[in-house]
């Protein structure tokens, strides 16, 4: 039975996404420019391919689509339903979905730590499943939020990656998915206790930001952000940030094992070292692409591809940092404790580029102000 379901998923996702895209292009082409249609087609290909090469992602993506369409159906075009309808209020509105995500990530962190000291595989499988569900709720939250923004007003509607609140959800989502990919690929769930720390920290910030600052309210786009570039630049950047975060957390595990702590529970140094390298590499490529796309966008919006704006400059510093990291590893063959420490410091630099610049330095990139 499962075999047939998987077989359907294999082709079904690509088919479903293609049909949805064609439908969207026919029905909404008046609201899209050519670039946006291009991005839609590109995204269709990308997610179909991802779902095919990584079956769990395919299942995950189909589930998120089904749930978001249910949510959209219940809304009936009326935003007030979020307060009135039971399912929306507690599960399927973007706010509740994001709250579920915020609850499930810390929960899976705890279970991962229990699994580290338990001989049964039950706990780590449970933790891993919870991460999948949390990520599902995160993606659902973003998709439904996207729809909700159009319910407020047609001209306010936009993809929910435009302010600090939204990109924090995106960060949790991308980081967890990348982690799940490597969990499967490296065939070990022992890195979860560490990676989930950084995700839970992001969740803690998100909750503080929601309850203390009311940041969850959907705001219209400022003119500078009204561009199709946002749809590419921001996610690419967050794949970079997420990868660097994972690399730093695995490096923490590396240093512990290197000092004989949790040696029995954690994978050996070679595996940890190799995974750090893999994650830094993928992060570096995406960060490079994101920075370049940012420059192309800046040339369109700010009047120059490079303005030495604090955010740009710190992106360059982050880039130089990881370029040096990779350079030393690839060319000089350096590895071990030093690179592990370096990856951790790298995350500090990255965090400053991501958050610190918004907090302490003012510039053109002032969308994500606290």
């Amino acid at each position, binding site marked *: 039975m499962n075999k047939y379901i998987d077989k359907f998923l294999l082709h079904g996702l690509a088919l479903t996404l293609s049909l949805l895209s064609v439908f969207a292009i026919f029905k909404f082409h008046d609201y899209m420019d050519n670039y946006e249609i291009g991005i839609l087609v590109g995204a269709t290909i990308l997610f179909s391919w991802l779902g095919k090469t990584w079956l769990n992602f395919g299942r995950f993506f189909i589930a998120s689509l089904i749930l978001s369409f249910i949510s959209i159906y219940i809304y009936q075009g009326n935003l007030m339903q979020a307060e009135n309808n039971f399912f929306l209020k507690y599960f399927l509105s973007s706010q509740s979905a994001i709250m579920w995500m915020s609850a499930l990530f810390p929960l899976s962190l705890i279970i991962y730590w229990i699994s580290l000291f338990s001989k049964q595989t039950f706990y780590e499988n449970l933790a891993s499943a919870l991460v999948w569900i949390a990520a599902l709720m995160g993606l659902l939250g973003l998709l439904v939020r996207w729809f909700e923004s159009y319910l407020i*007003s047609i001209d306010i509607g936009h993809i929910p990656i435009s302010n600090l609140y939204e990109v924090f959800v995106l960060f949790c989502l991308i980081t967890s998915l990348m982690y799940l990919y490597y969990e499967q690929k490296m065939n070990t769930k022992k890195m979860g206790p560490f990676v989930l720390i950084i995700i839970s920290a992001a969740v803690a910030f998100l909750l503080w930001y929601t309850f203390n600052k009311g940041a969850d309210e959907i705001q219209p786009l400022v003119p500078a952000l*009204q561009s199709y570039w946002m749809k590419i630049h921001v996610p690419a950047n967050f794949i970079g940030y997420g990868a660097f975060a994972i690399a730093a957390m695995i490096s923490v595990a590396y240093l512990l094992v290197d000092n004989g702590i949790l040696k029995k529970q954690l994978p050996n140094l070679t595996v940890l070292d190799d995974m750090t390298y893999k994650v830094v590499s993928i992060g570096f490529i995406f960060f490079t692409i994101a920075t370049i796309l940012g420059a192309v966008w800046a040339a369109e919006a700010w*009047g120059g591809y490079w303005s030495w704006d604090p955010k740009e*400059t710190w992106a360059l510093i982050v880039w130089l940092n990881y370029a040096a990291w990779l350079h030393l590893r690839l060319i000089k063959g350096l590895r071990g404790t030093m690179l592990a420490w370096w990856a951790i410091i790298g995350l500090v630099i990255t965090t400053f580029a991501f958050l610190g610049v918004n907090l302490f330095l003012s510039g053109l990139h002032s969308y994500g102000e606290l």
Partner: protein
Amino acid sequence: MRFAITMFSFVAIASIIGTVLKQNEPYESYLIKLGQFWFEIFEILGLYNVYQAFWFLLILIFLIISTSLCVYRNTPKIISDYRKFQDKVQEKSLLSFKHSYKLTYKNFDNSRLEEILLKNKFRFKKKILRNGDELYSAKRGEFQKLGYIFTHLAIIVISIGGLFDGNLVFKVQESLGLKNIIIDDIPLKEIDSSSRLSESNFSYRAQMLLAEGEKQEVAVLRAKEGYLIQELPFSIALKDFRIKHYSTGQPKSFESDLLVEDKKTGKVIAETISVNKPLTVNGITIYQSDFQDGGSKLGLRVWDLHSNQSFVPMASEIFKTNKLVYDDQNFNVEFNDFRKFNILEIEDGKKKKLKNVGPNFIYKIRNESGQAVEYQTYQFPMIVGGTSFFMSGMRSTPQDEFRYIKIPADANRELTGFLKFRSLITSPKQVSKSIDKVIKETSSNKAIDINLFKTSISKVINSFLEGGYSQIANLIDQDITVPKQEEIANSYIKIIFLVSKEIIKNYKVENKDDDSFILDDSSSFIQDSLNAYSDSFFYGIPMFFELKDYQHIQASGLQLTKSPGQVWVYIGSIMLVLGIFCMIYIQDVRLWIIKYKKTKKIVFAMTTNRQHYDFDKFALETRDKIKSIIN
């Protein structure tokens, strides 16, 4: 290479300095922040514009040279490596590799081996050795090494592109003393060629401020503490500038309708630009960068809050200065800004909501000795806590926040009610009459000295009329001991309120026929008016500027960019991504097989220049595949 990495570290450190110290601020603000001594040192180091500083560009040039040398030295070797198969190997050297195995065979089918190699994407070369033994040397992933060339060339190409756009020509001209930066405001006609950059200037990012209906032929290039004039091949006229808003009030778009006229051909292009939608003409890209007031016309009423006279009308414009006489002193009123929309967070019930509160304008009143007080006044009354107030903020230094005087609006949403109130409470006759009445009502049965009571009440009222609540505070500080101060203060405030209320009541009784009379006798209006009266003593000179009407004229801030390096930066960027991809995701693998005819033995070896975890797996798999065909 070490040199290059040192240079890169320098770039990183310089960049950090550039983000910590705000760049391209007016020099005065640096002077205030840093003090004379450090200001000069920072100026010499070029820290106010790090990224255009001479030494920063020098580092970039060094980087280009050093990276170029690196590429020049390594490329021939990489290319020959790419082409060549390493077929001069000895068994001994092969056996020193981590993955080297000696196998024996029964049947060895060369074609099946070749099949396996091709299937695994190896390219190979077969060589017959002396005894008829055979050597297969194979390789895959040679592109990895090309990644090295790509990334390094990319850095060179990007840096050169960046240098193209780094104003180099002007830098050289300036250091040779050929160009002068203008520091003061000089009329355009008087600026000579030494402060003008010609149309042929290679690259620039210049600014242009255009008021609606205006047309300009040159742009302004900011440099250090001043500016230069950039000549353009076309003129730009601004037909209209618009700000569109969302239903929630936030700005949705900034748009300028431009007419760009080519100076040579006279061809006119009409185009609307907005943020994210620039216009490129003759290789120059025109951006919507900001906006400001373009000299809006204001119709004002000037009220003296401390006299009973009616207003004096005044007409002015933004960026104009008007004369004002108060108390025999001359003042200049400088109108600096007008904003048609002001989106503020207003408390609406319990929730805070964004709301457009209508136009405001900003002006400075400067006395003869040059000291100025800055004001920000809103045209329409704003609703605060359910009551409408005219709001006007003042501050003495730009660092301060505006402190607002809140004058309650009357039933017609006019100032008249408050002014009438003021004239009544400052009338000695009315005050005296009302005090009598208040005394009568409050002390009906008690035997106290009425005259003494009246004198002390009068003293309180007069103090208030002379200087507001702070005068009352002085009075209390002088006469009353500390423990009783609060109690007394409260009773004074109450008395002032009661007397004022009595005055209004009185007046209403005496002027029953006056149906145009809109003076509100509710207690909140009286209290608010008393507060406003008291605050008027801290409003600089007590002249209130009421905005009656206006004609909004906006100016659009354009940026004009000529950036010949851009295309190179983009080409370099593509090379960079390709290069990084090659370096990380392509694994350069070499494989050798020596087949000994006599002994029926095989030496199999595999190596890579980068030891990854996956490689071990791959090597073992390949070995097993070969094993499987030789048994």
